[in-house]
């Protein structure tokens, strides 16, 4: 009861609040539209790179052992039941899209607690046979719990996004061009070469 009272707005707030809510939800749909957040309903990883802040994760995933097996959604969306799957997707989709559109994205994106749980459970979903041993689970109390009580990626630190998740994973698109390039500017190179010729004489 106490909590409800605290949360309940005072009477004179009613009108402004309703108006505000209207604006917010209107904006929400607008954001959904311009950011292609509706594409979240799809499981295709390409939709995640609709915004380039997801590029490092996309590229690292594309180079990982999981590319052929697991798409973004296989890990990042609950797979236990259909309702929850779409609820989570919608929640996440709207959230990411608003953050992106409002330019509010953090400098470095880090997974949140809720997201961690989802991913962790998805690791187990696919790898249950490997991480648990049905025979031992029957004899050894807490075997399942002990096997799965740490985030998988505390050990498998590079699955699937690699170690560097910054732009540095994708920065070197022009690598070839760069490798051919020399490191010493011509004006200095000439002077120093002259120096060496003098030395040899």
């Amino acid at each position, binding site marked *: 009861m106490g909590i409800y009272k605290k949360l309940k707005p005072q009477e004179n707030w009613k009108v402004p609040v309703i108006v505000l809510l209207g604006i917010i939800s209107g904006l929400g749909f607008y954001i959904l539209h311009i950011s292609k957040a509706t594409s979240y309903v799809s499981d295709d990883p390409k939709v995640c790179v609709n915004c380039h802040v997801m590029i490092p994760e996309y590229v690292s995933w594309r180079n990982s052992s999981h590319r052929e097996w697991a798409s973004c959604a296989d890990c990042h969306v609950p797979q236990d039941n259909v309702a929850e799957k779409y609820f989570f997707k919608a929640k996440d989709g709207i959230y990411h899209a608003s953050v992106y559109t409002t330019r509010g994205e953090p400098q470095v994106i880090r997974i949140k607690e809720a997201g961690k749980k989802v991913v962790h459970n998805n690791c187990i979903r696919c790898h249950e046979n490997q991480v648990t041993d049905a025979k031992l689970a*029957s004899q050894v*109390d807490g075997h399942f719990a002990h096997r799965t009580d740490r985030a998988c990626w505390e050990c498998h*630190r590079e699955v699937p996004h690699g170690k560097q998740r910054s732009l540095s994973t994708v920065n070197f698109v022009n690598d070839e061009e760069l490798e051919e390039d020399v490191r010493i500017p011509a004006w200095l190179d000439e002077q120093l070469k002259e120096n060496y010729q003098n030395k040899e004489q």
Partner: protein
Amino acid sequence: LERKSESAFAYTPKVKIGLNEPRNKVWGENFPREYQSYLQNADTLFKSAYNGNAMIDMLEVDPRLVVLWAGYGFSKDYNQGRGHTYAVTDLQNSLRTGGPTGPDDGPMPSTCWTCKSPDVPRLMGEIGVDNFYKGKWASKGSEVVNAIGCADCHDEKNMNLKITRPALIEAFEAMGKDINQATHQEMRSLVCAQCHVEYYFDTKIPEKEGIPYLTFPWENGFSVEEMEAYYDEKEFKDWTHGLSKAPMLKAQHPGYEVYLTGIHAKRGVSCADCHMPYKSEGGQKFTDHHIQSPLNNVANSCQVCHREESENLIRDVYDRQNRIIVNRDKLEELLVRAHVEAKTAWDLGATEEQMAEILQDIRHAQWRWDYAAASHGGSFHSPVEIGRVIGTGIDVAQEGRIKLARLLIALGFEGEVPYPDIATKEKAQAFIGMDVEKLKLEKEKFQKTLLPEWMKAAEEREAKMEDGE
């Protein structure tokens, strides 16, 4: 989760394991994978740059140790530890434990057994902790026979990890902590911390006077300075040095303490993560019970977390060990010099008062050296801290030697005290006046007479134990 109760019906354990069952084979019936890997602890083939499964005679490799430990058991015999399988045998065969001729004979107490066998929790359960620690080690020669094993770390009812050694529990209490609060991940290191820790025998515990009670000196903390302060406050010494007469401390394998100061511990990596990584058989993972140098198993231990070439990872370990050994070796040399210089001072008639500060410096410097040296793996487990500890050791040793330089001149000595010829273990043992041949003969006699009797008695005793039903 539901799956769990389902399959519970499908599998019934082959045997019922009794409380404190010391025979590893019995547990192995139920857990053949773990047991098979456990049996590999007998392996002695792998040798890394400084460690490995092989038995390495450290006094041979580094005869300076003989001088550092003059007057103490370790100068007789000291090996780099090998697999858990050998804990009992190595204790029996070490020259340190002498050649007892009966239950009340020999230089070492029962307490030595504490970290060597699952017969220990069994005995402690049967006769009580105090009675276990009482008497000579020979008094329990026919009781302690099984190699370190399942009952040391596991609860027989549910295979949970558990602490079976009172010293660790008491040390936690002394620090005001409750070991029952340890997380599962912490337990994966704490089972090792039952044994891989610095210890001493406290014979002055009220109401237990005279019992060499196994105690971990952690009350002030784990660092080299905090433990030193602990011993200093108690004016405890392990022995009086044979040459310098300094009141010495012996640091024994502070593995857990050093590990705690390193980055892996800070990031929640446990001993078991590296020394007992998972192993896959038939698509299922279980804990590898072959406990050894991870350098013999880089793929399963390091590479799960570090996607680096195996040779790079090994080089990283060696890099750290090599950087540490330079100064550790230097400190060792300085300590040899300090002991010999102190002896020269005594010989020239130095007084107790003149020597007091110098001996304290030697005590502290060697304690620091030993903390670094005895902690096998420490140069990797926490290289920055070990580097620091050795740095302070060098400073203190040299302070002592500056005082010695002044004193020696005051006593009429000129020039430098010559460095002894201790190029080999034999020369070093001769230098400190030890009769090794005598020790070896005593040991041989013991091995031919008393030891076989113990083994026979133990066999008969175990034959009467119920088989796991």
